């Protein structure tokens, strides 16, 4: 026993190294599994509030760009208003439209922490479960897809950015409706993505718009980017192409979180079917 103690104290560095390394790796590997219990991230009150304060100061530096982008979006939305469209039939009274019910609603939020230079980039938003944000909701900006909510606290939420090694989004070519999968390019360029697993008979062209398709958790047709290179990688049975991202992630300020009114119904139905199959 005494010899054992002497042995342990003599090589204490090695044993302490083993213990702490094991703890750290355990936390790292299991992070995705115990997200609810974990507090070591920017959704907790301390780090979240610090980022919010620093962001309040930083905002002054980019007021002009924010104004420009908001003005542009206003103009685009105004174009879609009924009042700005020319009516070529004679209207007969007002019609209460009961066919369309709102499926998606948008929650506006501000980006208070963001990065583009890591392999796993996360974005922190200044709104959380208190404002109706929940896990697995889609996040878009005025330009296109931004990411997916992975965790919420009461006043903050963490979004896994499109610029993350594990983000995959079901996408299609807007012109031909050919589906594929979308991910961030491997060379870590925050302006480039990769559309892969596109069927071989598709005929993509440079500049074709890439948008979300019906299998993704986003509404159909939200832009991801434009095709910028047709042969980034050779080999494989499917086509793949490089996409220039629609969103400038380094200048992200305001985003919208999409809440799908029918999401719980859909996942509930699918889960029910799964249990019946077993």
């Amino acid at each position, binding site marked *: 026993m005494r010899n054992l103690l002497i042995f342990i104290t003599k090589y204490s560095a090695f044993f302490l190294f083993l213990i*702490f*390394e094991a703890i750290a790796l355990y*936390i790292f590997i299991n992070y995705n599994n115990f997200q609810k219990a974990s507090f070591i991230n*920017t959704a907790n009150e301390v780090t979240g509030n610090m980022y919010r304060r620093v962001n309040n100061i930083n905002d002054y530096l980019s007021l002009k760009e924010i104004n420009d982008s908001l003005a542009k979006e206003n103009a685009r939305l105004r174009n879609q208003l009924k009042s700005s469209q020319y009516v070529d039939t004679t209207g007969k009274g007002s019609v209460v439209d009961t066919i369309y019910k709102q499926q998606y609603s948008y929650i506006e939020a501000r980006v208070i922490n963001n*990065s*583009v230079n*890591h392999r796993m980039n996360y974005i922190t938003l200044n709104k959380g479960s208190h404002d109706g944000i929940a896990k697995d909701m889609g996040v878009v900006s005025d330009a296109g897809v931004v990411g997916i909510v992975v965790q919420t606290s009461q006043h903050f939420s963490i979004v896994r950015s499109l610029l993350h*090694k594990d983000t995959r989004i079901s996408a299609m070519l807007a012109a031909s409706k050919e589906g594929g999968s979308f991910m961030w390019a*491997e*060379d870590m360029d925050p302006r480039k993505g990769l559309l892969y697993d596109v069927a071989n008979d598709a005929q993509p062209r440079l500049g074709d718009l890439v948008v979300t398709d019906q299998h993704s958790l986003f509404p159909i047709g939200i832009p991801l980017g434009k095709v910028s290179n047709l042969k980034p990688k050779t080999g494989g049975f499917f086509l793949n192409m490089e996409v220039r991202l629609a969103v400038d992630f380094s200048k992200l300020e305001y985003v919208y979180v999409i809440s799908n009114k029918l999401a719980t119904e859909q996942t509930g139905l699918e889960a029910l079917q799964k249990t019946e199959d077993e």
Partner: protein
Amino acid sequence: MSRILFANFVRFIVLVFIQAFLLKNMTVYELSTPYLYILFVMLLPFETPNIVLFPLAFLIGLCVDAFYDTPGLHAASTVLLAFVRVLFVNVTVQKEGLDTDPQPTLASMGFRWFFTYALILTLFHHFLLFNLEVFSWNEIQYTLSRFLLSTVFTVFLIIISGLLFFRRKKA
């Protein structure tokens, strides 16, 4: 003694803040990102017992993780850094027979020793950090170039801060 404690406490806070709010946004050509906070573990006094050194390294790693949303990643890397530090100091520094107690700083140990110390410790830390973050052989060439260029950036910042804050005391 209390002065050393206080100095290290302030250094801890300042380095985590610099890392989270300034250096996090800094990158050169998407390849080189500095991680200056490891300077804290490097500058702990030689007499720091292992039972204190490893928890402190773990703690600062976890603090940075809290700001980077990567729990465990930086903690694992800084614990490795602390282990390499113990080995390196054991091999290169003789504690007996010195009338002044040396500190692991640029001013106290000289440029050559400090540069080798910073370089080797940073190399180990960054190697684990970048490979653990990516965790894939497919991108090994990007990972390795990021690892090497980031090491250059970090060591550069460490040497600069050494020159700025630790003036050589004239005997």
